[in-house]
């Protein structure tokens, strides 16, 4: 059995905890999340006048204008590592389609009616691939409108398209993020996977049974999710 599974120390019952994310992965995730939140707040200040007051948290308008793309560079680097770590574990499987057709069972938490799930379910994979595409698209459109350094690279008509696309992509990214964050809150016990690095055995059994079985049997159905593990 994988050494990821060990008895939970704080309960008298014979319980187990399962390690889900290494410290490196968690640092990676929270760098990504932190830069994303800063990008959203600073971007929204420019998106609509009713939110311009957010610029006071970034040292005023000119500083915000300078900072936003700098946060963007942090985001793209964090994204690259995240992508390399997790792309394998998020490849689609046949059971994902079954999972997706049973939206009602998913939304009402009747997981007994769903196929057993590996490390990620189809919803998590959708979120992963949405971010996987949105971040580089935001980065590229962001470069086109990053006038301080890259003004000469593109024409004004190209910049117009890019700024519109950047705003639309940002809306898409924020929407996917709401889904991602809500899912983590709704499925209780999930957040500690990214904060403390482990989940309870019950959580793994309930939501990612195939993953748990693989860990128990020591079988590696999917390649290791994190090279560090």
């Amino acid at each position, binding site marked *: 059995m994988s050494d990821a599974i060990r008895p939970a120390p704080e309960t008298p019952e014979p319980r187990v905890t399962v390690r889900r994310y290494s410290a490196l992965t968690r640092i990676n995730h929270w760098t990504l999340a932190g830069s994303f939140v800063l990008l959203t707040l600073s971007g929204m200040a420019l998106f609509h006048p009713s939110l311009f007051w957010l610029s006071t948290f970034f040292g005023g308008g000119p500083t915000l204008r300078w900072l936003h793309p700098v946060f963007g560079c942090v985001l793209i680097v964090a994204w690259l590592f995240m992508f390399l770590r997790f792309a394998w574990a998020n490849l689609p499987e046949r059971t994902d389609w079954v999972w997706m057709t049973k939206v009602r069972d998913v939304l009402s938490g009747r997981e007994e009616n769903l196929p057993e799930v590996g490390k990620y379910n189809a919803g998590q994979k959708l979120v992963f691939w949405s971010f996987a595409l949105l971040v580089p698209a935001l980065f590229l459109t962001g470069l086109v409108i990053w006038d301080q350094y890259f003004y000469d690279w593109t024409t004004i008509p190209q910049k117009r398209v890019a700024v519109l696309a950047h705003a639309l992509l940002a809306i898409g990214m924020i929407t996917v993020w709401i889904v991602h964050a809500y899912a983590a809150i709704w499925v209780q016990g999930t957040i500690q996977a990214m904060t403390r690095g482990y989940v*309870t*055995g019950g959580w793994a*059994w309930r939501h990612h049974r195939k993953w748990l079985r693989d860990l128990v049997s020591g079988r590696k159905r999917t390649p290791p999710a994190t090279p560090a593990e």
Partner: protein
Amino acid sequence: MTITVNPPVAATAPAYGEQDLLRRSASSVPAPGRQLEAVSKLIDVSKCIGCKACQSACLEWNNLKEEIGVNTGTYQNPHDLTPNTWTLMKFTEWVNPQTDNLEWLIRKDGCMHCADPGCLKACPSPGAIVQYTNGIVDFDREKCIGCGYCVKGCPFNIPRISNVTHKAYKCSLCSDRVAVGQGPACAKACPTKAIVFGTKEQMKAHADKRIADLKSRGFDKAGLYDPPGVGGTHVMYVLHHADQPSLYAGLPDNPRISPIVEAWKGVTKYAGFAVIGLAAAFGFVHHLVAGPNKVTEHDEEEAARLTEGRSP
């Protein structure tokens, strides 16, 4: 019309200010209590001799310094508007196919002071761009954040962002001079009176006379450039080939705010808030209806049973 007498030496209180704003970027303004008379600059390209007195006067009045440039074989210097060159004589050599004459078209380029200003509508910083009820569109560098959105909003490619100050610059129509009853510096300097300044009505009447004169000399396509696509402008041209404005160093034939900019500044904002709001509302309602998805005691037992005796 352009006031040519020297101004009084004693300080004069500005005749208009904040209370006369028609529009303010990224903010709403109370309806102005009074309507100032619309002003306009009129540039008669047929009278321009390309001496650049206006270009120098602009640098002089606005205390701007241009770098020494390089000659690329035309009189145009610098080659384009810059953060320091708010007005630029643009020179075009054109062979008129009807007469086979080489025509030297000289146009004074600079801000057109649109009635429907694309720069102002694109600007995200409250008050960085203002429009007075007399038609002047002015930048307030104190409030500018240097984002370059005005550059994308402008249908005439006018604003320039300084790499030194990271602020936007363009012709102010000498709002500081107009406020104390003076005409713009360029108009005052023009030796042929190709540039004149006054109320928009006066300028249109003056243009009519000039156009009649040009037509009598065989320029039957002479006309006024006051493009309706941007609601008219407070800088107008008399063109001898008014049917082809783009001959004059690419003056847009039918300028208007780009539909992409309008979509970005219009529907995108509402759609954006709607989509984000719906996603948040969905989460909220779902949580009320479905409640948290909790791991049960049974799940924990199952997990423990699965791993029983096999933990290290």
